[in-house]
């Protein structure tokens, strides 16, 4: 579903991502772990076509993000770490706007918006201005907007930040459900316990390079993901 090959991105003299390759297959939840500044967000933004990279290739469902950006974006949903939404709109107008841009049929959008809003318990607040939403409510709205077009690939940057435990659980269930339906989820997190329990595969990035990746059980071995992560961190220093 997602293939990243030899991705490199530099900011001035700094290599934020250095020759990174990873593959996310259909039905997989893939966790992307690394310390602050390791290159997670740069990789994610490159995948979503909102950051130009220096070299390498990224394909989504067989389409190159550079050559066919619109096709890739139509198959992808992106949720940034800090969802700055259009706060001059109400929640429902924002969702309808997103549905318009993704060209979703009127009946389908009605059904999906209400289904996901009910699931994340945001329906009652959809008429409110986004400017009046809490961080968690904005995060929920961003998640609903990401699901309206039934994406093949969900790319999430720290998706659980700001969510209450119930919503957090609902999002985890949604991620699994989407994968069961054949989609793929690629998300970054600092919460290693979540990655350990939720992810089929994980990749650990440090200084822009992958230092470990593969099925979660293999990467973890007999210890916890946290131990592996901290050990890899100290090995590299």
């Amino acid at each position, binding site marked *: 579903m997602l293939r990243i090959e030899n991705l490199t991105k530099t900011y001035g003299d700094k290599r934020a991502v250095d020759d990174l390759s990873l593959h996310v297959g259909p039905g997989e939840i893939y966790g992307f772990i690394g310390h602050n500044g390791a290159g997670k967000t740069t990789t994610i*933004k490159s995948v979503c076509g909102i950051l130009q990279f220096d070299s390498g290739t990224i394909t989504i469902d067989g389409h190159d993000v550079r050559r066919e950006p619109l096709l890739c974006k139509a198959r992808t949903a992106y949720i940034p770490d800090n969802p700055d939404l259009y706060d001059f709109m109400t929640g429902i*107008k924002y969702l309808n706007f997103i549905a*318009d*841009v993704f060209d979703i049929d009127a009946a389908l959008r009605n059904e999906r918006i209400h289904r996901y809003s009910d699931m994340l318990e945001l329906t009652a607040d959809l008429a409110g201005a986004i400017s009046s939403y809490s961080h968690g409510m904005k995060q929920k709205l961003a998640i609903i907007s990401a699901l309206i077009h039934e994406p093949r690939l969900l790319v999430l940057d720290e998706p659980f930040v700001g969510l209450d435990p119930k919503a957090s659980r609902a999002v985890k269930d949604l991620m699994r459900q989407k994968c069961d339906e054949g989609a793929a989820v690629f998300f970054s997190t600092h919460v290693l316990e979540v990655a350990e329990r939720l992810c089929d595969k994980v990749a650990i990035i440090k200084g822009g390079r992958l230092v470990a990746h593969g099925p979660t059980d293999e990467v973890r071995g007999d210890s916890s993901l946290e131990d592996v992560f901290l050990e890899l961190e100290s090995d590299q220093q």
Partner: protein
Amino acid sequence: MRGVLASLFVRGGHRPSRARTIVFALLFAYVGTALMLLFGVLFQPMIDAFSGMGLTWLYFALYASMVFALGVVGTVFIASAQIFGPRDNELLLALPIRPGHILISRILVLLTVEAVVTLLVLVPVTVIWLRAGLGSVAGMLMLVAGTALLPLLALSVSLLLAWLLSVVGQRVRFKNLVTLVVSVAFLIGYLYIYSNIQRYLNDLIARGEEFASAFSRAMPPFYSFGVAVAEGNPAQFAVFALWAVLPFGLVFLLLSSRYLRILTTRRGSRRVRYQARELRRSGRLLALTRKELAYFWSRPAVVLNSSIGSVFLLLGAVLLLVNRDNVLGSVETFMAVVPGATFPGIAVAAVAAVGSANNLSSSLVSLEGRSLWIARSLPVGPMTVIQAKINAHLTVSALPALIASVLLGAAVAEGPKDWAAIVLIPQTFLVMLAFAGAAVNLVLPRLDWISEVQVVKQSASAMAALFGGMGIVAGLALLYAFLVRDLMALDAYLWLCGAVFVAATIAVYAFLRRGGVERFEGLAA
């Protein structure tokens, strides 16, 4: 303070290039010189009249009141946005900084703005005074010292008004509409006074002593200022200094003692419960254009700064409807002193010049700010996003221009040729400006703003689009009056201009499709 000033002049941690600094210095020098000449024309007749009547103090008292009025008008909306509404208030409050210090840093920026405005009036007023041979060392010292204190007096009033605006804004239901109506009413009042200033001036000179007596009673701070400078009177200077410092000190103490409360008190809005209803489907470009317009209407600061030309065009149209003979009379007076001017020519130039004050498209890319990631991650091409911004500009700009053109056509057109020129040529110009504004914004984007005012009022792209549009109209008018008039008839020249505007629009469109798209894709989301 350094942080706030950096936010005005430094983009994304980088200082502007030397070339850009030089271009903007020249632009500011041009605007500054034009404004100083304007004030010079205003004050020149006063000095002889008032000094002849022994009322030189009135000259300086009027200077002080002019600086005061400009200071209040010029800073009240900036104060409202920068002191009570910026996005970084919470960040600053979380730092170990006293709220009073945050207030001081913001006030110092406002004082800088007022100092610049004051300088534009001070220079011509001083030159006229010295040329009249009335200057003295003591007077000059008091003029300089008093001028340094004048912004404090203006700021006392603008701070209170800005606070009032922010409190009213939190309490009224249709906040945007009310802010918009109040602001436009304020602007109309200001323009009414400004457009009648020559009449007031003539009355003033004719009834100098009577006016001086009333003025000295009604405006004691300015009276003291005037007497202090004209006579080099230290006692009156001390009185004026008290008038300037005391109110400012009181307002500052009042605000600083409550600043934390002002910034942290949020009146909750009534919760509107969502009632499910059928959602309507729109095409991509229409949805994006609607989104731009929804943003536009939700921000009074954007409406007032980016579409003021449309406000004036509609006001002008109303004025033409209710006061046709007077308006046409004024145009005739104007035509008498402009070589080669005709009614249709002036109508075309008027709609184009006033419409050029609309510069919405030059801000809309910057105004994406931190939500740029949405437009960048959606499955729409960059050109569609840019086109939606141009469409929003055209929606706001084209209809008022069309209304004004039709009314002007009804008043002055003598045949289909005049009608076509009055209706079509300004539209070709305004369409070109819409495209050019988007291009300028993509060349000079500013995404790191903390208040929209920084984009729509202070950003390089907004200023370049505004002055560029007005400069083109002025340049083309001067070109015709002094060079082309002997070579071709005015209507032929106007159509030639229209053809050039169409060609320029095509050229800018071609740039947007390649360079504009590349720049949009290169913006850091």
